């Protein structure tokens, strides 16, 4: 990465709150995954060891539910933040949801998707992506979907006595399957596809840490989000969005955290593969 010195200015992609939420989500998600998978793969030796390291199944349960509360908190905070964003920046829901920085999928995403596939197979140029690419939007809504599905089923399993006042008992079994398989999907997806697509793409090696620093080099913005760059350059607002890069020590700390999260994530993936392929009963 070209380093123009301490004074180099970078493009602000994420707000401080968004960065905090992402870190909270990492911690919460990792905790949920670790504690939850000990139950799912209870038949492996690893699960028993991990469960004891976590202080037993009850303590693992507390961690799991506390992490779930954090996750709900992240989700709600984000919704509140969206509401603020609408009020301060966009004025109307319509502007927020249909504007150029909307997370909602649009027709252009479909064109970009097809264009990307063509690029993959050497049948065209790389599409000029905007602020959010289609895979970023997919990741974003996967979280919405995940929180809705895993969160709701998790709540029924947390409060089974309450929910069986109006749901049949076997719904708890159904909820268990959904909760557990959707969690498997989430962990599997985040720790492989999301890791690769967003953080570990070879051209960004060793790692894209934009979501932690909130900043990305201008060259990267021009290269990866040309449409956003051009719009900003055209409107002359680019300079407003530029800020000084973090000093190297901060960057190193962030990298250490990110690598730790990656290591945990990959370990979990290996464990899942082992449990599913070699120890499944």
């Amino acid at each position, binding site marked *: 990465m*070209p380093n123009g010195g301490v004074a180099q200015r970078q493009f602000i992609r994420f707000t401080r709150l968004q960065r905090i939420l992402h870190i909270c989500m990492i911690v919460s998600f990792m905790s949920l995954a670790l504690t939850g998978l*000990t*139950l*799912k793969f*209870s*038949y492996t030796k690893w*699960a*028993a060891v991990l*469960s*004891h390291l976590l202080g*037993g*199944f*009850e303590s693992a349960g507390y961690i799991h539910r506390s992490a779930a509360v954090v996750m709900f908190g992240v989700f709600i905070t984000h919704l509140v933040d969206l509401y603020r964003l609408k009020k301060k920046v966009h004025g109307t829901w319509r502007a927020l949801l249909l504007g150029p920085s909307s997370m909602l999928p649009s027709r252009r995403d479909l064109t970009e998707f097809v264009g990307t*596939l063509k*690029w*993959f*197979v050497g049948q065209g*140029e*790389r599409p000029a992506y905007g602020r959010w690419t289609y*895979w970023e939007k997919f990741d974003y809504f996967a979280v919405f979907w995940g929180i809705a599905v895993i969160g709701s089923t998790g709540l029924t*399993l947390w409060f*089974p*006595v309450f929910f*069986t*006042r109006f*749901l*049949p*008992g*076997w719904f*708890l*079994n*159904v909820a*268990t*399957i*959904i909760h557990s*398989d*959707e969690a*498997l*999907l989430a962990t*599997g*997806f985040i720790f*492989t*596809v999301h890791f*690769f*697509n967003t953080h570990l*793409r*070879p*051209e960004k*090696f060793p790692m894209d840490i934009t979501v932690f620093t909130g900043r990305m080099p201008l*060259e990267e913005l*021009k*290269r990866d989000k*040309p449409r956003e760059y051009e719009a900003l350059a055209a409107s002359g607002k680019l300079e407003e969005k530029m800020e000084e890069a973090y000093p190297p020590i901060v960057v190193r700390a962030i990298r250490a955290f990110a690598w730790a999260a990656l290591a945990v994530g990959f370990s979990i993936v290996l464990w899942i593969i082992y449990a599913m392929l070699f120890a499944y*009963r």
Partner: protein
Amino acid sequence: MNTTRAGKTVSLYVDGKKFATSVHGSLGCTGCHVDLEGKELPHETPAKVNCGTCHATEQEQHARSLHGKAVAHGDPLAPRCANCHGNHDIYPVKDSRSAVAPMKVPFVCGQCHREGTPVQRNRAIPQDNILENYSESIHGEALLKKGLSVAPNCATCHTPHLILPHTDPASSIARRNIAATCTKCHSQIEAVHRKIIRGELWEKEANVLPACIDCHQPHKIRNVFYTQGMADADCMRCHADPKLRRASDGQPLYVNVDELSHSSHQTNARNQKVACSQCHSEVNASRVRPCETITHKVDCSSCHDEIGRQYASSTHGQLANKSDPNAPSCKECHGTHGVLGRLDPKSPTFATNIPALCARCHREGQKAAVRYSGRQHEIVANYTESIHGKGLLKSGLTVTATCTSCHTAHRVLPRSNPESSVNVANVPATCGRCHNGIEEQFENSIHAKKAIASGKELPVCNDCHTAHAIRRTDEDKFRLDIMDQCGRCHQEIAKTYFDTYHGKVSRLGYTKTAKCYDCHGAHDVLAVTDPRSRLSRANVAATCQKCHPGATRRFAGYLTHATHHDPRKYPFLFYTFWGMTALLLGTFVVSGVHTLLWLPRAFQMRQELRAAEAEPATTVGTPTSEESSDA
């Protein structure tokens, strides 16, 4: 009226009054003297009266008897009917005027069988001082001094007419008949002679066992025979010598008097002392070495009859019967002269000493263990670590189950034997001896034999609790293992249980979630269709409420043994699972392919970026166009 016979003057007077009152009075003279019927007076000397015309049985018996045979030989000393019964003055036996009234019998017999008579001097009578001894014996004393006419007289044992020597097998006093003879009166004698009477061994194995008269001398019958017969002091004359050894094999024959005096055969609650010759029977006091007539080893069952029979039926006894060198005899466990009761802490059979006692042969590698081919191994080690072993050996609870509590002390039999206390049919009763109430619960459960007639193999106590390694049921290890025990038979149910939250937590090694017995019960487990079951329609909510306060009937609809592999039984779970799996696979396939296709391009981009960095003058602001031109 007189006559002369063989040079002696004999009175021929008949007391008419006496005769008239005698039993034969109504018959008249010619009733017996039949040859005088119709003869003119004075008649000739009448022929000898034949009592047998009326008393045929008695006469036949007399003819077969010692007396009758002597008469037939022409023995002048041989008694005929009249010698005992008299002639014209015969009264009923119960009449005190009778010559053979019970009180008079000793004297009737004593006419001949007393010291100094020709019979006693000239005939082969093995007994001396018969009448004197008898009159001083407990029998004679009762009859003659206390006037108890029911006390036995000579005829009681020897019979009145069929008197035979004891060498004649038909004799009432023959070795094999003596027991029957004595027990005519001593019918309750088994209270003190347990084996001999009730076991009928006296009759069956008279040659092995002592007969009454071996201890109770024939005519001087006392209840303290041994002080008069064989005294311990006689034995100790030789056996007090520590250097005494058997000539044939050098085995020490020393008897430690001190040890003996503290044994339960000498010091016991009933204050009964057992003499040497009571155990070492077959001694003959008339020999210089009374023990030289001993041919058999000590048979404890002479007194310990019931135990002896139990032992004989046990594996130990059966092996001993086959002369197996490994077979333990009584003394292997109980010792010999120093034998102590099982309540004496010094005894090898005291509760806390039993495991070590049995371990001498049953410890791994020892002689009993090496012969064993079953599944129980490390018996002693496992027992020591078990709840029973700890209770007994560490806590000193002498009521705790030890080897003999389950296997019995003397009826030790292998599990395969239906008679064995540890046979599958008997295990509940064996455990139930201590675990009061549990057996009853179990017998009413679905696992009890009577509950199911299917002939399926049903579990008993040890199938879940194990035999020797029994753990505390509140130990985690036990609580977790028990699920696998249930799963040995209930395979499908156990497998699906481990697919649920309860099972998964248990699998992780925690005991707080519901395990088999939390819902189904332990010893009282019943079919869920049984209204008494904890899981019946009426009870299931209450069972769930033990852990889930507020649980309703609907809550209990949770499938505790659910599987998502059975579309018929659990269609919801089946389709949910496969729906989720399809979603999972679909997402991964699409995103996986997407990522894999991306990789070559990403590497290409990386190379281009590196190349661009390497160029000293980078055209800032147009990397994209550069890339495109390269591509």
